[in-house]
């Protein structure tokens, strides 16, 4: 393989330096695209980290730090108990899913400030519609209605942003206030004094309440996990195998097996934690429904962003809108759909909130949730400049934010301190990101 040019690349006058800046040629290439053996892969990977391309490493480091600190610190190391790890996931789920939705806006280089209250509107509609004393809709129809509201709201915002060329910051700021108003109006329907609850024995209420509180039977949990691992592992093996047999550069077969093995171990560990008895008296075990729900959102949005034309266009617009336009991509449609997906995902997130809180009330901190969602995505590695970000980042960042709050609550530390620590972690995340990119002398670059 020939050596890439390095020294003789002048910077074009009047061009942004990142078009032709010399150090980029020296940048490390993702090891998975060139490594042919496991040793090469490991070497490539460590070279890449040294070159400042840390990927999700900082957020993983943050998670390990949170785990170690709170485990040592918490009374009786309760942080790592099964009950608390399940709590941690349940508490983080809202921010994780919100951040996965926000990813669509952030990758485009836009922002959606309205997600908290738009999602809250959708969830409030769902919670209102399943009330047995008023509308008594079946739970699935109520969820669809709530998500449709979110989709419509996102479509209107997206249309204003793309067709009238208004800045997304302002449009969604307006959307945030409008959605907050609508949310309070929706809450006041029916004889619930503004507090429609998911309380009672009605099966539709129970279905929504059980998203968080309900558990899949322990045996069924194992079966589902096994099926999931087999499907994912089979797909990974098959696609690597096809690349290998068709003569394309493919990772070494040992690496494929290691990855599949790790996924199987993770799945087994998660199920084992959830299947442990979490109650100190009586029995409480099984995988909470919220875990597969978050996984489904993660897999769906990952496939959409990384394996379909639509996702490819989202990244292209985020990276270079002019290039996307010249490639014949319909920018307004792609952008508008991104805002719709963002709002619908927010609807799912706030449905999880309703389930966690057992109903909806005017206490929803819609503005704060937006900030947490953006912070989670950025902590996970998504760029605010556009072009770079994944659904996975939201999940990882959400776990970090949730982990901080969970650990500090275990200590009985005050909520004021939690705000401060979360803010510091966010600043640390963007600082690491900025420094590593400055070190590697390039703009926002990633393999997507």
């Amino acid at each position, binding site marked *: *393989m*020939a*050596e*890439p*040019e*390095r020294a*003789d*690349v*002048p*910077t*074009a006058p009047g*061009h942004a330096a*990142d*078009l*032709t800046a*010399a150090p*980029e*040629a020296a*940048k490390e*290439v*993702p090891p998975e*695209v*060139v490594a042919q053996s496991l040793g090469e892969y490991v070497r490539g990977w460590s070279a890449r980290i040294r070159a400042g391309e840390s990927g999700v490493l900082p957020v993983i480091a943050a998670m390990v730090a949170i785990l170690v600190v709170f485990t040592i610190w918490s009374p009786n190391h309760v942080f790592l108990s099964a009950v608390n790890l399940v709590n941690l996931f349940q508490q983080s789920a809202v921010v994780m899913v919100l951040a996965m939705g926000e990813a669509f806006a952030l990758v485009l280089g836009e922002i959606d400030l309205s997600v908290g209250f738009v999602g809250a509107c959708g969830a409030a509609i769902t919670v209102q519609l399943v009330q047995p004393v008023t509308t008594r809709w079946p739970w699935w129809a109520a969820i669809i209605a709530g998500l449709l509201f979110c989709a419509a709201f996102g479509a209107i915002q997206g249309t204003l942003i793309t067709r009238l060329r208004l800045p997304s910051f302002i449009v969604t700021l307006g959307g945030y206030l409008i959605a907050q108003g609508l949310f309070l109006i929706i809450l006041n329907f029916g004889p619930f004094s503004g507090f429609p609850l998911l309380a009672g024995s009605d099966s539709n209420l129970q279905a929504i309440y059980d998203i968080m509180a309900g558990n899949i039977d322990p045996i069924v949990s194992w079966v589902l996990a096994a099926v999931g691992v087999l499907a994912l592992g089979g797909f990974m093996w098959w696609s690597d195998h*096809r*690349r290998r047999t*068709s003569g*394309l*550069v493919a990772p070494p077969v040992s690496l494929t097996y290691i990855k599949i093995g790790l996924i199987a171990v993770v799945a087994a560990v998660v199920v084992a934690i959830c299947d442990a008895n979490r109650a100190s008296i009586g029995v409480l075990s099984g995988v909470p429904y919220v875990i597969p729900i978050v996984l489904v959102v993660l897999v769906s949005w990952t*496939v959409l962003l990384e*394996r*379909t*034309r639509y996702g*490819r*266009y989202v*990244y*292209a617009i*985020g*990276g*270079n809108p*002019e*290039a*996307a336009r*010249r*490639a*014949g*991509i319909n920018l307004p449609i792609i952008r508008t759909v991104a805002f719709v997906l963002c709002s619908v995902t927010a609807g799912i997130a706030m449905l999880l909130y309703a389930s966690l809180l057992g109903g909806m009330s005017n206490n929803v901190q819609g503005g704060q949730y937006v900030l947490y969602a953006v912070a989670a995505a950025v902590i996970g590695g998504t760029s605010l400049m556009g*072009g*770079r970000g994944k659904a996975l980042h939201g999940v990882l960042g959400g776990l970090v934010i949730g982990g901080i709050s969970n650990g500090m609550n275990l200590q009985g530390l005050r909520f004021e301190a939690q705000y401060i620590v979360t803010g510091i972690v966010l600043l640390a995340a963007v600082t690491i990101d900025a420094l590593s990119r400055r070190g590697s002398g*390039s*703009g*926002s*670059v*990633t*393999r*997507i």
Partner: protein
Amino acid sequence: MAAVAVTDASHEPLLRLRDVDKHFGPVQALYHVNLDLPSGKVTALCGDNGAGKTVTTKIVSGIYQADAGEILWQGHPVHIRNARDASRLGIETVYQDLALADNLDIVQNMFLGRERARGVLLDEDSMERAAAETLASLRVTTVKSIRQPVASLSGGQRQSVAVAKAVMWNSKLVIMDEPTAALGVVQTRQVLDLIKRLRDRGLAVMVISHNLNDVFEVADRIAVMYLGRLVVQDDASNFDRQSVVDYMTTGGSSRSGGRARES
């Protein structure tokens, strides 16, 4: 009898602009431009800033519409209403700013807007193979991996990717806007070699350039614009450096070296 010979497909240029006018409001940008772009030849379009080079290329690539005159493609009049029409005919444009998305890799950029898919999922393997073949056929071999992001490429490599992107679609005419403007010596060499290889494949190539060294190095034909008019086009051997400069700055040339046919 001569008229019959002109309509013969073998002599007809791939693309011919006939009496093309274009104005923006009161500003007349092009006056009766007649330009021939034959297959298997590199045509250099020269001219000072504001001479109308960019407007001409944008009319060919479908971004602007001509106000008057006609465009003949293989002898038949065509309307190029947008970039899609142009690429359907086989016209691809490599823009000066390259129009590559930094965050996407080489394969993703080359297939941007024309991805191959099986069902709803992208067929990455097939795209990767096709991209690798195209780059190999153009002898672009300096990139480490075609799965590396474009941001990690050097200027010459980026230009190569942009050209490869343009020729991958069985294009017949490739328009290149200042292809060497941002490049160093070694990389300019690579790009000029690449242009020659396109010609050797039988493509029509139109190169817009200020750099007369490059023009004389690579062009088979030279066309010069001056204040919205195409003042001369002929085989490169009929020009010398000074005559091209004269045409660019005054619209005419009296030098003996300039044996070129004025239009």
